[in-house]
Protein backbone atom coordinates (compact mmCIF):
# COMPACT_ATOMS: atom_id res chain seq x y z
CA UNK A 1 0.00 0.00 0.00
CA UNK A 2 2.66 2.52 1.10
CA UNK A 3 6.17 2.19 -0.22
CA UNK A 4 9.20 4.38 0.48
CA UNK A 5 12.11 3.96 -1.91
CA UNK A 6 15.51 5.20 -0.81
CA UNK A 7 14.00 8.24 0.88
CA UNK A 8 16.43 10.89 2.12
CA UNK A 9 15.93 14.20 3.84
CA UNK A 10 18.43 16.98 4.37
CA UNK A 11 17.93 20.14 6.43
CA UNK A 12 20.75 22.32 5.12
CA UNK A 13 23.95 20.47 5.96
CA UNK A 14 22.19 18.04 8.30
CA UNK A 15 21.16 14.71 6.84
CA UNK A 16 18.12 13.63 8.84
CA UNK A 17 17.34 10.55 6.74
CA UNK A 18 19.41 8.57 4.23
CA UNK A 19 18.24 5.89 1.81
CA UNK A 20 15.33 4.58 3.82
CA UNK A 21 13.20 1.85 2.21
CA UNK A 22 9.94 0.92 3.87
CA UNK A 23 6.83 -0.98 2.90
CA UNK A 24 3.49 -1.13 4.65
CA UNK A 25 0.70 -3.55 3.79
CA UNK A 26 -3.00 -3.01 4.57
CA UNK A 27 -3.81 -3.89 8.16
CA UNK A 28 -0.17 -4.06 9.14
CA UNK A 29 1.12 -2.44 12.32
CA UNK A 30 4.73 -1.35 12.11
CA UNK A 31 6.62 -0.09 15.13
CA UNK A 32 9.20 2.56 14.27
CA UNK A 33 11.92 2.83 16.88
CA UNK A 34 15.12 4.75 17.35
CA UNK A 35 16.91 7.10 19.69
CA UNK A 36 16.17 10.83 19.84
CA UNK A 37 17.26 12.40 16.56
CA UNK A 38 17.33 9.09 14.69
CA UNK A 39 14.87 10.46 12.13
CA UNK A 40 11.59 8.89 13.28
CA UNK A 41 9.59 12.09 13.38
CA UNK A 42 11.10 13.28 10.10
CA UNK A 43 10.03 10.04 8.45
CA UNK A 44 6.54 10.40 9.85
CA UNK A 45 6.27 13.97 8.65
CA UNK A 46 7.34 12.93 5.15
CA UNK A 47 4.60 10.29 5.02
CA UNK A 48 2.10 12.83 6.41
CA UNK A 49 3.04 15.25 3.61
CA UNK A 50 4.53 17.91 5.89
CA UNK A 51 8.01 17.52 4.38
CA UNK A 52 8.86 16.69 0.79
CA UNK A 53 11.83 14.28 0.84
CA UNK A 54 15.00 15.71 -0.71
CA UNK A 55 15.72 12.39 -2.42
CA UNK A 56 13.96 9.11 -3.12
CA UNK A 57 10.36 8.39 -3.86
CA UNK A 58 7.05 7.66 -2.17
CA UNK A 59 4.55 5.26 -3.72
CA UNK A 60 0.93 4.87 -2.71
CA UNK A 61 -0.94 1.88 -4.12
CA UNK A 62 1.96 1.42 -6.53
CA UNK A 63 1.82 4.96 -7.93
CA UNK A 64 4.49 7.59 -7.25
CA UNK A 65 2.99 10.38 -5.16
CA UNK A 66 4.05 13.80 -3.93
CA UNK A 67 2.30 14.32 -0.67
CA UNK A 68 1.06 17.52 0.92
CA UNK A 69 -0.87 17.54 4.19
CA UNK A 70 -4.09 17.81 2.21
CA UNK A 71 -3.31 15.20 -0.44
CA UNK A 72 -2.05 12.78 2.22
CA UNK A 73 -5.42 13.09 3.90
CA UNK A 74 -7.19 12.55 0.60
CA UNK A 75 -5.22 9.34 0.15
CA UNK A 76 -6.37 8.24 3.60
CA UNK A 77 -3.23 8.99 5.60
CA UNK A 78 -3.85 10.53 9.02
CA UNK A 79 -1.24 11.60 11.53
CA UNK A 80 -1.42 12.09 15.28
CA UNK A 81 1.58 14.10 16.39
CA UNK A 82 3.51 13.85 19.61
CA UNK A 83 2.46 17.32 20.72
CA UNK A 84 -1.03 16.32 19.50
CA UNK A 85 -1.23 19.49 17.36
CA UNK A 86 -4.34 20.77 19.08
CA UNK A 87 -5.61 24.30 19.43
CA UNK A 88 -5.98 24.85 23.18
CA UNK A 89 -8.37 27.75 22.72
CA UNK A 90 -10.95 25.72 20.79
CA UNK A 91 -13.41 23.04 21.85
CA UNK A 92 -12.77 19.33 21.39
CA UNK A 93 -15.27 19.26 18.54
CA UNK A 94 -13.65 22.24 16.81
CA UNK A 95 -10.31 20.44 16.99
CA UNK A 96 -11.70 17.15 15.70
CA UNK A 97 -13.14 18.93 12.67
CA UNK A 98 -10.37 21.51 12.17
CA UNK A 99 -9.89 21.97 8.44
CA UNK A 100 -12.80 19.60 7.71
CA UNK A 101 -15.70 21.47 9.21
CA UNK A 102 -19.20 20.27 8.36
CA UNK A 103 -21.57 22.72 6.74
CA UNK A 104 -25.26 23.06 6.27
CA UNK A 105 -26.91 25.46 3.89
CA UNK A 106 -28.90 28.29 5.36
CA UNK A 107 -31.88 29.14 3.12
CA UNK A 108 -30.49 26.59 0.69
CA UNK A 109 -27.50 28.76 -0.27
CA UNK A 110 -25.47 30.24 2.57
CA UNK A 111 -22.96 27.71 3.95
CA UNK A 112 -22.77 27.85 7.74
CA UNK A 113 -20.96 25.60 10.22
CA UNK A 114 -23.18 22.72 11.28
CA UNK A 115 -22.39 22.77 15.00
CA UNK A 116 -24.99 20.15 15.93
CA UNK A 117 -23.80 17.56 13.42
CA UNK A 118 -20.15 18.11 14.37
CA UNK A 119 -20.91 17.80 18.08
CA UNK A 120 -22.88 14.60 17.51
CA UNK A 121 -20.16 13.01 15.39
CA UNK A 122 -17.37 13.88 17.80
CA UNK A 123 -19.42 12.49 20.70
CA UNK A 124 -19.72 9.23 18.72
CA UNK A 125 -15.98 9.16 18.08
CA UNK A 126 -15.20 9.72 21.78
CA UNK A 127 -17.64 6.91 22.55
CA UNK A 128 -15.85 4.54 20.17
CA UNK A 129 -12.55 5.46 21.78
CA UNK A 130 -13.98 4.85 25.22
CA UNK A 131 -13.00 8.37 26.24
CA UNK A 132 -14.80 10.58 28.75
CA UNK A 133 -13.89 13.71 26.77
CA UNK A 134 -16.88 15.96 26.19
CA UNK A 135 -17.40 17.55 22.76
CA UNK A 136 -17.87 21.10 24.08
CA UNK A 137 -14.95 21.16 26.49
CA UNK A 138 -12.09 23.46 25.69
CA UNK A 139 -8.91 21.51 25.02
CA UNK A 140 -7.15 23.87 27.47
CA UNK A 141 -9.15 22.29 30.30
CA UNK A 142 -8.63 18.65 29.29
CA UNK A 143 -6.52 15.90 30.84
CA UNK A 144 -3.65 14.28 28.92
CA UNK A 145 -5.80 11.27 28.04
CA UNK A 146 -8.67 13.42 26.84
CA UNK A 147 -6.30 15.41 24.66
CA UNK A 148 -4.93 12.18 23.20
CA UNK A 149 -8.49 11.04 22.54
CA UNK A 150 -9.25 14.32 20.78
CA UNK A 151 -6.25 13.90 18.50
CA UNK A 152 -7.17 10.28 17.78
CA UNK A 153 -10.80 11.19 17.15
CA UNK A 154 -9.65 13.77 14.64
CA UNK A 155 -7.52 11.16 12.87
CA UNK A 156 -10.37 8.63 12.82
CA UNK A 157 -12.84 11.12 11.43
CA UNK A 158 -12.20 10.21 7.83
CA UNK A 159 -11.90 6.41 8.28
CA UNK A 160 -8.23 6.48 7.23
CA UNK A 161 -6.31 3.62 5.59
CA UNK A 162 -3.03 4.51 7.31
CA UNK A 163 -2.63 6.03 10.75
CA UNK A 164 0.65 7.59 11.79
CA UNK A 165 0.97 7.70 15.56
CA UNK A 166 3.87 9.64 17.09
CA UNK A 167 4.41 8.58 20.72
CA UNK A 168 0.70 8.09 21.43
CA UNK A 169 1.39 6.70 24.90
CA UNK A 170 4.00 9.20 26.06
CA UNK A 171 1.80 11.51 28.11
CA UNK A 172 -1.00 9.34 29.47
CA UNK A 173 -1.80 7.05 32.37
CA UNK A 174 -1.30 3.31 32.44
CA UNK A 175 -5.01 2.61 32.04
CA UNK A 176 -5.17 4.93 29.05
CA UNK A 177 -2.10 3.28 27.50
CA UNK A 178 -4.00 -0.02 27.51
CA UNK A 179 -6.91 1.76 25.82
CA UNK A 180 -4.73 3.25 23.12
CA UNK A 181 -3.08 -0.12 22.42
CA UNK A 182 -6.52 -1.71 22.24
CA UNK A 183 -7.56 0.97 19.78
CA UNK A 184 -4.54 0.20 17.59
CA UNK A 185 -5.57 -3.48 17.53
CA UNK A 186 -9.11 -2.48 16.63
CA UNK A 187 -7.83 -0.34 13.78
CA UNK A 188 -5.71 -3.22 12.49
CA UNK A 189 -8.71 -5.56 12.62
CA UNK A 190 -10.58 -3.08 10.43
CA UNK A 191 -7.79 -3.25 7.85
CA UNK A 192 -6.18 0.06 8.84
CA UNK A 193 -2.39 0.17 8.72
CA UNK A 194 -0.57 1.81 11.59
CA UNK A 195 2.91 3.29 11.69
CA UNK A 196 3.65 3.60 15.40
CA UNK A 197 6.51 5.65 16.72
CA UNK A 198 7.22 4.78 20.32
CA UNK A 199 9.96 4.84 22.87
CA UNK A 200 8.16 2.19 24.84
CA UNK A 201 9.45 -1.22 23.85
CA UNK A 202 6.46 -2.90 25.53
CA UNK A 203 3.98 -0.98 23.32
CA UNK A 204 5.71 -2.02 20.12
CA UNK A 205 6.02 -5.65 21.15
CA UNK A 206 2.38 -5.67 22.31
CA UNK A 207 0.74 -4.46 19.10
CA UNK A 208 3.20 -4.31 16.19
CA UNK A 209 3.63 -6.97 13.50
CA UNK A 210 6.99 -5.62 12.44
CA UNK A 211 9.62 -3.44 14.02
CA UNK A 212 11.75 -0.98 12.07
CA UNK A 213 14.78 0.58 13.75
CA UNK A 214 16.39 3.84 12.64
CA UNK A 215 19.81 4.97 13.77
CA UNK A 216 21.26 8.32 12.69
CA UNK A 217 18.90 8.55 9.73
CA UNK A 218 19.52 5.03 8.41
CA UNK A 219 17.33 1.98 8.66
CA UNK A 220 19.30 -0.68 10.55
CA UNK A 221 16.59 -3.30 11.02
CA UNK A 222 13.20 -4.26 9.60
CA UNK A 223 11.90 -7.57 10.86
CA UNK A 224 8.88 -9.37 12.26
CA UNK A 225 8.37 -8.75 15.96
CA UNK A 226 8.05 -12.49 16.48
CA UNK A 227 11.60 -12.94 15.19
CA UNK A 228 13.11 -10.23 17.34
CA UNK A 229 13.37 -9.41 21.00
CA UNK A 230 13.42 -6.27 23.12
CA UNK A 231 17.08 -6.94 23.87
CA UNK A 232 17.96 -7.08 20.18
CA UNK A 233 16.02 -3.90 19.41
CA UNK A 234 17.68 -2.07 22.32
CA UNK A 235 21.08 -3.11 20.96
CA UNK A 236 20.09 -1.89 17.49
CA UNK A 237 18.88 1.45 18.79
CA UNK A 238 22.04 2.13 20.78
CA UNK A 239 24.37 0.82 18.09
CA UNK A 240 25.67 -2.06 20.19
CA UNK A 241 24.38 -4.20 17.35
CA UNK A 242 25.26 -2.78 13.91
CA UNK A 243 22.30 -4.17 11.95
CA UNK A 244 19.83 -7.06 11.85
Amino acid at each position, binding site marked *: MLELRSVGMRFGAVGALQGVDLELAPGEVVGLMGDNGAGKSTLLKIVAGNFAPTSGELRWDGQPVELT*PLSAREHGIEAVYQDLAL*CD*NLSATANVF*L*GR*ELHRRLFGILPV*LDHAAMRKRSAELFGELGSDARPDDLVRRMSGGQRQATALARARLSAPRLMLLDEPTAAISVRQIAEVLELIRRLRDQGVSVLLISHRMSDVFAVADRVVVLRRGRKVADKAVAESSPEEVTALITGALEAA
Partner: protein
Amino acid sequence: MRSLLRAPQSLWVTLTVAALAGVMSLVSEPFASADNIFNISRNFAFIGLIALGQTAVIATGGIDLSVGSVMGLAGIVTGLVLGSGQPLIVAAAAGLGCALLCGLVNGSLVAYFRLSPFVVTLGMLSIARSLALVISNNRMIHDFGPDEDLLLALGGGRFLGVANPVWLLAVAALCAAAWFRYSRLARHVLAVGGNEDSTRLAGVPVARVKLTVYVLSSLLAGVSAILMIGWLGAVTNALGQNYELRIIASAVIGGANLMGGEGGAFGAVAGAALIELIRNSLLLLGVDPYWQGAFIGGSIIVAMLVERMRRAGR
Protein backbone atom coordinates in the same frame (compact mmCIF):
# COMPACT_ATOMS: atom_id res chain seq x y z
CA MET B 1 -18.33 34.75 41.66
CA ARG B 2 -16.69 31.96 39.69
CA SER B 3 -19.43 32.03 37.06
CA LEU B 4 -19.10 35.81 36.89
CA LEU B 5 -15.38 35.43 36.30
CA ARG B 6 -16.11 33.03 33.48
CA ALA B 7 -18.57 35.37 31.77
CA PRO B 8 -17.22 36.65 28.48
CA GLN B 9 -15.28 39.88 28.59
CA SER B 10 -17.84 41.54 26.28
CA LEU B 11 -20.41 41.13 29.08
CA TRP B 12 -18.08 42.69 31.64
CA VAL B 13 -17.45 45.63 29.36
CA THR B 14 -21.15 46.06 28.60
CA LEU B 15 -21.87 46.11 32.33
CA THR B 16 -19.14 48.70 32.83
CA VAL B 17 -20.59 50.83 30.04
CA ALA B 18 -24.04 50.62 31.63
CA ALA B 19 -22.70 51.46 35.10
CA LEU B 20 -20.66 54.40 33.85
CA ALA B 21 -23.61 55.70 31.82
CA GLY B 22 -25.83 55.34 34.89
CA VAL B 23 -23.47 57.32 37.11
CA MET B 24 -22.89 59.97 34.45
CA SER B 25 -26.63 60.55 33.91
CA LEU B 26 -26.91 61.25 37.64
CA VAL B 27 -23.96 63.60 38.00
CA SER B 28 -24.11 65.40 34.67
CA GLU B 29 -27.31 66.83 33.30
CA PRO B 30 -26.20 67.19 29.67
CA PHE B 31 -24.96 63.59 29.55
CA ALA B 32 -28.34 61.97 29.00
CA SER B 33 -29.50 64.61 26.51
CA ALA B 34 -30.50 63.29 23.11
CA ASP B 35 -27.76 65.33 21.45
CA ASN B 36 -25.01 63.92 23.62
CA ILE B 37 -26.16 60.31 23.22
CA PHE B 38 -26.35 60.89 19.48
CA ASN B 39 -22.81 62.25 19.47
CA ILE B 40 -21.37 59.44 21.58
CA SER B 41 -22.97 56.75 19.47
CA ARG B 42 -21.84 58.33 16.21
CA ASN B 43 -18.29 58.90 17.43
CA PHE B 44 -17.79 55.35 18.52
CA ALA B 45 -19.40 53.93 15.38
CA PHE B 46 -16.40 55.00 13.28
CA ILE B 47 -14.02 53.34 15.74
CA GLY B 48 -16.20 50.30 16.38
CA LEU B 49 -16.45 49.47 12.68
CA ILE B 50 -12.67 49.31 12.34
CA ALA B 51 -12.32 47.52 15.68
CA LEU B 52 -14.35 44.64 14.19
CA GLY B 53 -11.64 44.08 11.59
CA GLN B 54 -8.89 44.68 14.14
CA THR B 55 -10.44 41.99 16.33
CA ALA B 56 -10.12 39.45 13.52
CA VAL B 57 -6.47 40.44 13.01
CA ILE B 58 -5.69 40.22 16.73
CA ALA B 59 -7.50 36.87 16.93
CA THR B 60 -4.94 35.44 14.49
CA GLY B 61 -2.21 36.62 16.86
CA GLY B 62 -1.38 39.63 14.67
CA ILE B 63 -1.94 43.36 14.96
CA ASP B 64 -2.77 46.10 12.47
CA LEU B 65 -1.19 49.42 13.46
CA SER B 66 -1.83 50.97 10.04
CA VAL B 67 -5.61 51.42 10.31
CA GLY B 68 -5.49 55.12 11.21
CA SER B 69 -3.19 55.95 8.30
CA VAL B 70 -5.23 53.82 5.90
CA MET B 71 -8.24 55.91 6.95
CA GLY B 72 -6.28 59.03 6.04
CA LEU B 73 -5.25 57.70 2.65
CA ALA B 74 -8.68 56.32 1.76
CA GLY B 75 -10.34 59.57 2.90
CA ILE B 76 -8.00 61.78 0.87
CA VAL B 77 -8.36 59.65 -2.27
CA THR B 78 -12.15 59.58 -1.97
CA GLY B 79 -12.22 63.35 -1.42
CA LEU B 80 -9.94 64.10 -4.37
CA VAL B 81 -11.85 61.86 -6.78
CA LEU B 82 -15.15 63.38 -5.65
CA GLY B 83 -13.69 66.86 -6.07
CA SER B 84 -12.68 66.03 -9.62
CA GLY B 85 -16.38 65.68 -10.42
CA GLN B 86 -16.73 61.91 -10.25
CA PRO B 87 -19.85 60.36 -8.70
CA LEU B 88 -19.65 59.06 -5.12
CA ILE B 89 -19.71 55.43 -6.21
CA VAL B 90 -16.53 55.91 -8.26
CA ALA B 91 -14.83 57.93 -5.53
CA ALA B 92 -15.73 55.38 -2.86
CA ALA B 93 -14.43 52.59 -5.08
CA ALA B 94 -11.15 54.49 -5.50
CA GLY B 95 -10.82 55.08 -1.75
CA LEU B 96 -11.68 51.47 -0.91
CA GLY B 97 -9.32 50.31 -3.66
CA CYS B 98 -6.45 52.11 -1.94
CA ALA B 99 -7.44 50.58 1.40
CA LEU B 100 -7.61 47.18 -0.27
CA LEU B 101 -4.10 47.63 -1.64
CA CYS B 102 -2.76 48.57 1.79
CA GLY B 103 -4.43 45.48 3.25
CA LEU B 104 -3.01 43.26 0.51
CA VAL B 105 0.50 44.59 1.11
CA ASN B 106 0.19 44.15 4.90
CA GLY B 107 -1.36 40.71 4.59
CA SER B 108 1.04 39.40 1.94
CA LEU B 109 4.11 40.48 3.88
CA VAL B 110 2.80 38.93 7.07
CA ALA B 111 1.34 35.76 5.55
CA TYR B 112 3.74 34.89 2.73
CA PHE B 113 6.99 36.61 3.75
CA ARG B 114 6.44 35.79 7.42
CA LEU B 115 7.38 39.27 8.57
CA SER B 116 6.29 40.45 11.99
CA PRO B 117 2.82 42.04 11.85
CA PHE B 118 4.00 44.74 14.22
CA VAL B 119 6.82 45.83 11.92
CA VAL B 120 4.88 45.50 8.66
CA THR B 121 1.89 47.50 9.81
CA LEU B 122 4.08 50.04 11.59
CA GLY B 123 5.77 50.58 8.23
CA MET B 124 2.39 50.90 6.53
CA LEU B 125 1.31 53.38 9.20
CA SER B 126 4.11 55.63 7.99
CA ILE B 127 3.74 54.87 4.27
CA ALA B 128 -0.02 55.40 4.00
CA ARG B 129 0.15 58.64 5.99
CA SER B 130 2.97 59.87 3.81
CA LEU B 131 1.07 58.98 0.62
CA ALA B 132 -1.95 60.87 1.93
CA LEU B 133 0.31 63.91 2.41
CA VAL B 134 1.84 63.56 -1.04
CA ILE B 135 -1.37 63.24 -3.03
CA SER B 136 -3.24 65.89 -1.04
CA ASN B 137 -0.22 68.16 -1.06
CA ASN B 138 -1.17 68.89 2.53
CA ARG B 139 -4.36 70.67 1.44
CA MET B 140 -7.71 70.41 3.15
CA ILE B 141 -10.31 69.10 0.71
CA HIS B 142 -13.83 70.38 1.22
CA ASP B 143 -15.13 70.64 -2.33
CA PHE B 144 -16.67 67.26 -2.95
CA GLY B 145 -18.16 67.96 -6.42
CA PRO B 146 -21.68 67.13 -7.62
CA ASP B 147 -22.20 64.28 -5.15
CA GLU B 148 -21.24 66.39 -2.11
CA ASP B 149 -24.78 66.40 -0.70
CA LEU B 150 -25.01 62.65 -1.04
CA LEU B 151 -21.70 62.16 0.80
CA LEU B 152 -22.69 64.55 3.59
CA ALA B 153 -26.07 62.85 3.95
CA LEU B 154 -24.45 59.43 4.03
CA GLY B 155 -21.91 60.16 6.74
CA GLY B 156 -23.61 62.98 8.60
CA GLY B 157 -27.26 62.07 8.23
CA ARG B 158 -29.58 60.14 10.49
CA PHE B 159 -32.35 57.60 10.06
CA LEU B 160 -35.09 57.20 12.67
CA GLY B 161 -33.09 59.50 14.94
CA VAL B 162 -29.96 57.38 14.85
CA ALA B 163 -26.80 58.45 12.99
CA ASN B 164 -26.16 56.54 9.77
CA PRO B 165 -22.73 55.27 10.84
CA VAL B 166 -24.38 53.75 13.93
CA TRP B 167 -26.81 51.85 11.73
CA LEU B 168 -23.94 50.59 9.66
CA LEU B 169 -22.03 49.56 12.78
CA ALA B 170 -25.09 47.69 14.08
CA VAL B 171 -25.49 45.78 10.82
CA ALA B 172 -21.75 45.13 10.56
CA ALA B 173 -21.56 43.91 14.17
CA LEU B 174 -24.45 41.48 13.66
CA CYS B 175 -22.83 40.19 10.47
CA ALA B 176 -19.49 39.89 12.25
CA ALA B 177 -21.06 38.04 15.19
CA ALA B 178 -22.70 35.57 12.81
CA TRP B 179 -19.41 35.31 10.94
CA PHE B 180 -17.49 34.46 14.10
CA ARG B 181 -19.99 31.78 15.06
CA TYR B 182 -20.92 30.23 11.73
CA SER B 183 -18.13 30.69 9.22
CA ARG B 184 -15.34 28.29 8.59
CA LEU B 185 -12.94 31.17 7.93
CA ALA B 186 -13.58 32.68 11.36
CA ARG B 187 -13.06 29.27 12.95
CA HIS B 188 -9.72 29.12 11.17
CA VAL B 189 -8.88 32.66 12.29
CA LEU B 190 -9.25 31.55 15.92
CA ALA B 191 -7.38 28.32 15.23
CA VAL B 192 -4.42 30.18 13.70
CA GLY B 193 -4.30 32.41 16.76
CA GLY B 194 -4.51 29.40 19.07
CA ASN B 195 -1.84 27.23 17.48
CA GLU B 196 -0.58 28.23 14.06
CA ASP B 197 1.53 25.12 13.44
CA SER B 198 -1.27 22.74 14.38
CA THR B 199 -3.66 24.59 12.16
CA ARG B 200 -1.25 24.28 9.26
CA LEU B 201 -0.83 20.56 9.98
CA ALA B 202 -4.61 20.21 9.87
CA GLY B 203 -4.48 21.40 6.26
CA VAL B 204 -5.89 24.87 6.82
CA PRO B 205 -4.46 27.44 4.35
CA VAL B 206 -2.97 29.56 7.12
CA ALA B 207 -1.41 32.18 4.85
CA ARG B 208 -4.70 32.83 3.09
CA VAL B 209 -6.49 33.18 6.42
CA LYS B 210 -3.97 35.80 7.53
CA LEU B 211 -4.09 37.69 4.25
CA THR B 212 -7.87 37.87 4.51
CA VAL B 213 -7.96 39.43 7.97
CA TYR B 214 -5.51 42.20 7.04
CA VAL B 215 -7.52 42.99 3.90
CA LEU B 216 -10.71 43.03 5.95
CA SER B 217 -9.16 45.36 8.51
CA SER B 218 -7.99 47.84 5.87
CA LEU B 219 -11.30 47.75 3.99
CA LEU B 220 -13.25 48.56 7.16
CA ALA B 221 -10.83 51.44 7.80
CA GLY B 222 -11.67 52.65 4.28
CA VAL B 223 -15.42 52.40 4.81
CA SER B 224 -15.15 54.23 8.10
CA ALA B 225 -13.04 56.97 6.49
CA ILE B 226 -15.62 57.61 3.76
CA LEU B 227 -18.42 57.92 6.33
CA MET B 228 -16.24 60.15 8.46
CA ILE B 229 -15.48 62.68 5.73
CA GLY B 230 -19.22 62.79 5.01
CA TRP B 231 -19.75 63.70 8.66
CA LEU B 232 -16.87 66.19 8.88
CA GLY B 233 -17.66 67.77 5.50
CA ALA B 234 -13.94 68.03 4.81
CA VAL B 235 -10.86 65.87 4.81
CA THR B 236 -7.21 66.50 5.59
CA ASN B 237 -4.31 64.09 5.49
CA ALA B 238 -4.54 63.95 9.30
CA LEU B 239 -7.81 61.98 9.14
CA GLY B 240 -7.59 59.05 11.52
CA GLN B 241 -4.28 60.13 13.00
CA ASN B 242 -3.59 58.30 16.29
CA TYR B 243 -6.82 56.33 15.90
CA GLU B 244 -4.92 53.05 15.91
CA LEU B 245 -4.56 53.21 19.68
CA ARG B 246 -8.29 53.67 20.24
CA ILE B 247 -9.13 50.95 17.72
CA ILE B 248 -6.71 48.41 19.15
CA ALA B 249 -7.81 49.38 22.66
CA SER B 250 -11.45 48.78 21.69
CA ALA B 251 -10.67 45.31 20.42
CA VAL B 252 -8.50 44.41 23.41
CA ILE B 253 -10.89 45.83 26.01
CA GLY B 254 -13.64 43.88 24.23
CA GLY B 255 -11.80 40.61 24.84
CA ALA B 256 -9.55 40.14 21.82
CA ASN B 257 -6.45 38.40 23.13
CA LEU B 258 -3.20 39.91 21.85
CA MET B 259 -1.67 36.42 22.05
CA GLY B 260 -4.28 35.32 19.53
CA GLY B 261 -7.11 32.81 19.57
CA GLU B 262 -9.79 34.91 21.23
CA GLY B 263 -12.05 37.74 20.18
CA GLY B 264 -15.61 38.54 19.29
CA ALA B 265 -17.74 41.07 17.46
CA PHE B 266 -19.78 42.37 20.39
CA GLY B 267 -16.68 42.80 22.49
CA ALA B 268 -15.15 45.10 19.90
CA VAL B 269 -18.27 47.27 19.79
CA ALA B 270 -18.61 47.33 23.58
CA GLY B 271 -14.93 48.23 23.89
CA ALA B 272 -15.31 51.11 21.44
CA ALA B 273 -18.40 52.29 23.33
CA LEU B 274 -16.55 52.22 26.63
CA ILE B 275 -13.63 54.28 25.33
CA GLU B 276 -15.91 56.90 23.80
CA LEU B 277 -17.94 57.00 26.99
CA ILE B 278 -14.81 57.61 29.05
CA ARG B 279 -13.74 60.40 26.69
CA ASN B 280 -17.17 61.98 26.78
CA SER B 281 -17.47 61.70 30.56
CA LEU B 282 -14.11 63.37 31.10
CA LEU B 283 -15.16 66.26 28.86
CA LEU B 284 -18.49 66.69 30.62
CA LEU B 285 -16.85 66.53 34.03
CA GLY B 286 -14.57 69.36 32.98
CA VAL B 287 -11.35 67.33 33.04
CA ASP B 288 -8.62 68.87 30.96
CA PRO B 289 -8.68 67.06 27.54
CA TYR B 290 -4.93 66.61 27.85
CA TRP B 291 -5.72 63.85 30.31
CA GLN B 292 -7.64 61.75 27.78
CA GLY B 293 -4.63 59.78 26.59
CA ALA B 294 -3.78 58.81 30.16
CA PHE B 295 -7.29 57.54 30.81
CA ILE B 296 -7.56 55.60 27.53
CA GLY B 297 -4.13 54.08 27.98
CA GLY B 298 -4.95 53.24 31.59
CA SER B 299 -8.21 51.57 30.59
CA ILE B 300 -6.34 49.23 28.23
CA ILE B 301 -4.03 48.18 31.01
CA VAL B 302 -6.91 47.67 33.43
CA ALA B 303 -8.72 45.55 30.83
CA MET B 304 -5.63 43.36 30.46
CA LEU B 305 -5.40 43.01 34.25
CA VAL B 306 -9.04 41.95 34.47
CA GLU B 307 -8.43 39.43 31.71
CA ARG B 308 -5.45 38.05 33.61
CA MET B 309 -7.55 37.70 36.77
CA ARG B 310 -10.28 35.91 34.85
CA ARG B 311 -7.70 33.47 33.49
CA ALA B 312 -6.40 32.77 36.96
CA GLY B 313 -9.96 32.21 38.15
CA ARG B 314 -10.84 29.45 35.73
